[in-house]
């Protein structure tokens, strides 16, 4: 069953075509890894799913709701599609616990106690129960990103969107974030991940999409595609990433 459907989706920034009539169906439980050179449209594709970028043509349906259906419907989409950003974007005036409890409180209308309890459980899940009272500025990049994952999960989304979640991290900090993501995938979470981590794509991904000039140029099983690139351009790209 498709939970995300791109239907000839286009996106322009002025004259620049960033997405060019993309057709893509993503099913529940898939872990889709998006790769491609910078400017190929992979981040834009991701950001269109939860309406952070407005599509310019075609349609995009997430969990049965079109991103063009209106503001209220867009908020429903966003509740079902948690997002993790490259720059973490934790709320600096709130502790780790408050960051995680914030969504349930203000979006789902959870009680203070309920939100707190759930936040503590999620922080434990990402291995940070001892940092609950710390502010983002007091955490390492890897820890901040794990809090950000917990914050997104707290709203109980059906899909998780990751926009280069490890690109801003030192190599040794990347692993702790990737571990949490691997665990999520094992639990059956539907995930769309923009990343350059090819090892993660191979081990965790169920599908690899290579984008070029706003179009999907390769779509296949990660291991097969990586070991046997069907296009010269992809072969070239993989050599530069690895």
């Amino acid at each position: 069953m498709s939970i995300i459907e791109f239907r000839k989706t286009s996106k322009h920034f002025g004259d620049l075509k960033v997405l060019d009539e993309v057709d893509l169906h993503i099913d529940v439980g898939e872990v889709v890894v998006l790769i491609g050179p910078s400017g190929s449209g992979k981040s834009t594709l991701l950001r269109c799913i939860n309406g952070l970028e407005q599509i310019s043509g075609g349609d995009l349906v997430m969990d049965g709701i079109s991103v063009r259906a209106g503001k209220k419907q867009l908020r429903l989409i966003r509740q079902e599609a948690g997002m993790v950003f490259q720059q973490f974007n934790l709320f600096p005036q709130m502790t780790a616990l408050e960051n995680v409890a914030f969504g349930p409180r203000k979006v789902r209308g959870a009680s203070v106690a309920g939100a707190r309890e759930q936040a503590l459980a999620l922080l434990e899940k990402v291995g940070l129960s001892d940092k609950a009272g710390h502010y983002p500025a007091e955490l390492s990049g890897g820890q901040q990103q794990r809090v950000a994952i917990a914050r997104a999960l707290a709203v109980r989304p059906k899909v998780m969107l990751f926009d280069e979640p490890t690109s801003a991290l030192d190599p040794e900090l990347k692993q702790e974030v990737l571990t949490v993501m691997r665990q999520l995938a094992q639990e059956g979470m539907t995930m769309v991940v923009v990343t350059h981590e090819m090892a993660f794509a191979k081990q965790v991904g169920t599908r690899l999409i290579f984008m070029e000039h706003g179009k999907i140029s390769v779509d296949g099983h990660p291991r097969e595609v990586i070991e046997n690139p069907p296009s010269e351009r992809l072969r070239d790209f993989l050599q530069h990433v690895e």
Partner: protein
Amino acid sequence: MQTDWSVVLNFLPQLIGGAKITVQITVIGLFGGLILGTMAGLMRAYGGRVLNAIAFTYVELIRGTPIVVQVMFLYFAMPVLTGLRVDPMSAAVLAIIVNAGAYIAEIVRGAFLSISRGLSEAGLALGLPQWKVLVYILGPLAFRRLIPPLGNQFIVSLKDTSLFIVIGVGELTRTGQEIMAANFRAVEIWTAVAVIYLILTGTMSVALRMIEKRMRIL
């Protein structure tokens, strides 16, 4: 030159009376100015084309004209135009509201826009409506950045009340002027007036610095 500082003591009750009116105009005016300025600033930063244009026109109109002209307009021209008479005190308070509001609008706009777009996106991505992102996420962060420039504006507005001498409001400067006209003790009276202004602005500075210190500036 002979100075006699006992005059100051004799006229102190009158001067303090004037200072009270100065404080009254400033406090009510800045309270209104904060509300008006916050609204206009948010309209500039997040409003659609129409709201943005309204706020922009207001800010440019007020920033581009002297406050003395504004209060003269409110006090002398408005009654002619609308038939509504305002007393000098109301005209003075209104002038501070309108004038400070325009400057505060720009301060508010700058503070909100200086906050990383990513934080706003993080809030929206959770499924929050825009107004909740403003109130719960950006607002508290912007407020901390507002305090230093706001302190500046508060002090400017307090001193601007001295210009209302032109419509005969009995504030501190006007009181000093009246005492002076009667006894010609220029040095003593104007020194006293200046010192009282310094005490008022100094108190304001200290209060703002205390608020600033109590918050972690991010």
